[in-house]
């Protein structure tokens, strides 16, 4: 929007009313700037400006070894840090053709699903807050705390765990892990009913979300809107089903699809995904096989020269990792195809001719994480 700011006043379209949502704005969930052209309350068009927390992670990866890259992937999508870690590990293991102990696969899958639940919990909290129901925020965070405690006990960190490492996980699970996960599942199954009662079934919420931000399946594919947002448009794009990794080929779960294509359907997909994730955890938690928590790895990990690609299903969509290796211990080029980046690109398309309040709801339903966009 530099052009617009620098234009003489006479050249600016008098009819349009530009407002800057962000970089500091309560509903952009971070430092995202949306330049919105309004006509009254109606959004005419919108230009996202990102890069406010661009840290050059792809450049930093080029000087880091593969185990070191893991702590950077934590910071891309901080809400699904464990899944991003998992992607790097899968890529390295695939390139080196290492057999991973089954115990590790179980642990990683459980951790991934816990990550998904907590990410969706936080998303639910902030969704409620964006629509003005502030109490949702505290209920979501309250329940998320239990998962953070489970993580803290096993991995030592609450948020950016760096728990995966190529070949396995950093430490074996804590003896209390299974007990605590069971306790969490038991509690959360009760609490998630409150989520439905306070928000999902609420008439104001339904009016705010139904028919808002229609994203057709064709558009979702063309814009690359993956994850729950894409599945809300009826696009079966769950990597856990299409390209199963870890334990996902062996557990029973449904890919949640909805066909209303609006904010409400994206919302309901995430709500049901929490149930599905709990279902997956329940199938795995009692059957974790004994064994080592890590495969034997060389001290220095060097990928053979070549190109590697790995995709995983993060809480926001498909996270793709594209690595060009020249045989060194550091990648030659590492590209992260982050879900939020593609999901952001559709925001302009689906929020046209909606109201500002709808824009907030649509933005929340895409579940954007700003570091995931900026990297």
């Amino acid at each position, binding site marked *: 929007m*530099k052009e617009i700011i620098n234009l003489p006043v006479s050249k600016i379209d008098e009819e349009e009313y530009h407002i800057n949502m962000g970089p500091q704005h309560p509903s952009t969930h971070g430092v995202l700037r949306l330049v919105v052209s309004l006509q009254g309350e109606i959004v005419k068009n919108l230009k996202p400006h*990102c*890069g406010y927390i*661009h840290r*050059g992670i*792809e*450049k930093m990866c080029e000087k880091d070894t593969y185990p070191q890259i893991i702590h950077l992937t934590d910071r891309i999508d901080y809400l699904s840090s464990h899944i991003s870690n998992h992607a790097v590990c899968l890529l390295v293991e695939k390139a080196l053709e290492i057999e991973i102990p089954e115990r590790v696969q179980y642990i990683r899958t459980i951790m991934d699903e816990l990550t998904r639940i907590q990410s969706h919990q936080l998303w639910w909290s902030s969704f409620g807050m964006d629509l003005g129901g502030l109490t949702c925020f505290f209920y979501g965070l309250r329940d998320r705390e239990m998962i953070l405690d489970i993580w803290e006990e096993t991995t030592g960190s609450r948020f950016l765990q760096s728990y995966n490492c190529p070949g396995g996980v950093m430490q074996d699970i804590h003896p209390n892990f299974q007990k605590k996960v069971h306790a969490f599942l038991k509690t959360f199954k009760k609490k998630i009913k409150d989520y439905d009662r306070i928000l999902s079934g609420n008439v104001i919420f339904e009016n705010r979300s139904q028919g808002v931000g229609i994203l057709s399946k*064709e*558009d979702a*594919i*063309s*814009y*690359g809107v993956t994850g729950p947002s894409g599945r809300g448009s009826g*696009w*079966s*794009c769950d990597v856990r089903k*299409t390209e199963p990794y870890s334990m996902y080929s062996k557990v029973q779960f449904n890919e949640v699809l909805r066909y209303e294509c609006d904010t409400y359907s994206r919302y309901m997909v995430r709500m049901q995904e929490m149930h599905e994730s709990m279902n997956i955890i329940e199938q795995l938690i009692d059957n974790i096989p004994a064994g080592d928590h890590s495969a034997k790895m060389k001290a220095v990990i060097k990928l053979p020269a*070549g*190109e*590697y*690609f790995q*995709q995983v299903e993060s809480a926001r969509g*498909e996270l*793709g990792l*594209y690595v*060009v290796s020249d045989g060194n211990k550091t990648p030659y*080029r590492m*590209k992260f*195809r982050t879900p939020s*980046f*593609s999901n*952001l*690109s*559709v925001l302009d*398309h689906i929020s046209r001719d909606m109201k500002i309040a709808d824009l907030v709801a649509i933005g929340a339903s895409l579940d954007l994480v700003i570091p995931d966009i*900026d*990297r």
Partner: protein
Amino acid sequence: MDNDSLTARILEIVPDAQLEENKQFLTFLVPAANLHDLALKLKSSPELAFDFLFCVSGVDYGKQLAVVYHLNSTQHKHALVIKVKTDDRANPNFDTVCDIWRTAEFHERETYDMFGIRFNNHPDLRRIFLEEDWKGYPLRKDYVDEVNIVEF
């Protein structure tokens, strides 16, 4: 479609395409001039139907600059990787594919931002992450910046 028939089909569209061996996905190196034409056919042919552009990555191979397109078909569940390369480091440019896959608009802006690769006919080719007045293209291998990059 399996990889063999895909190969045949693509060589039929672009006879100059080179198949790269030993890759995870079927990978073709395509002359830059054929890129847009090929992309259009990949999307529109019903038996190919590559409707999902998963990832657009710029790569700096030292001498050459390349753009890698990861394609997927949601219908036929097959995948394809298209590569274009150029030797022109001073003014690299390719045709845009964002009229075919809308997601390319942002990904191409990112590639332009990081590698300085221009995409012809792109509707809004500006830097996406860095400032408009940023000098150089950071992900190129010959990029030197003493001020902003802290070496340990």
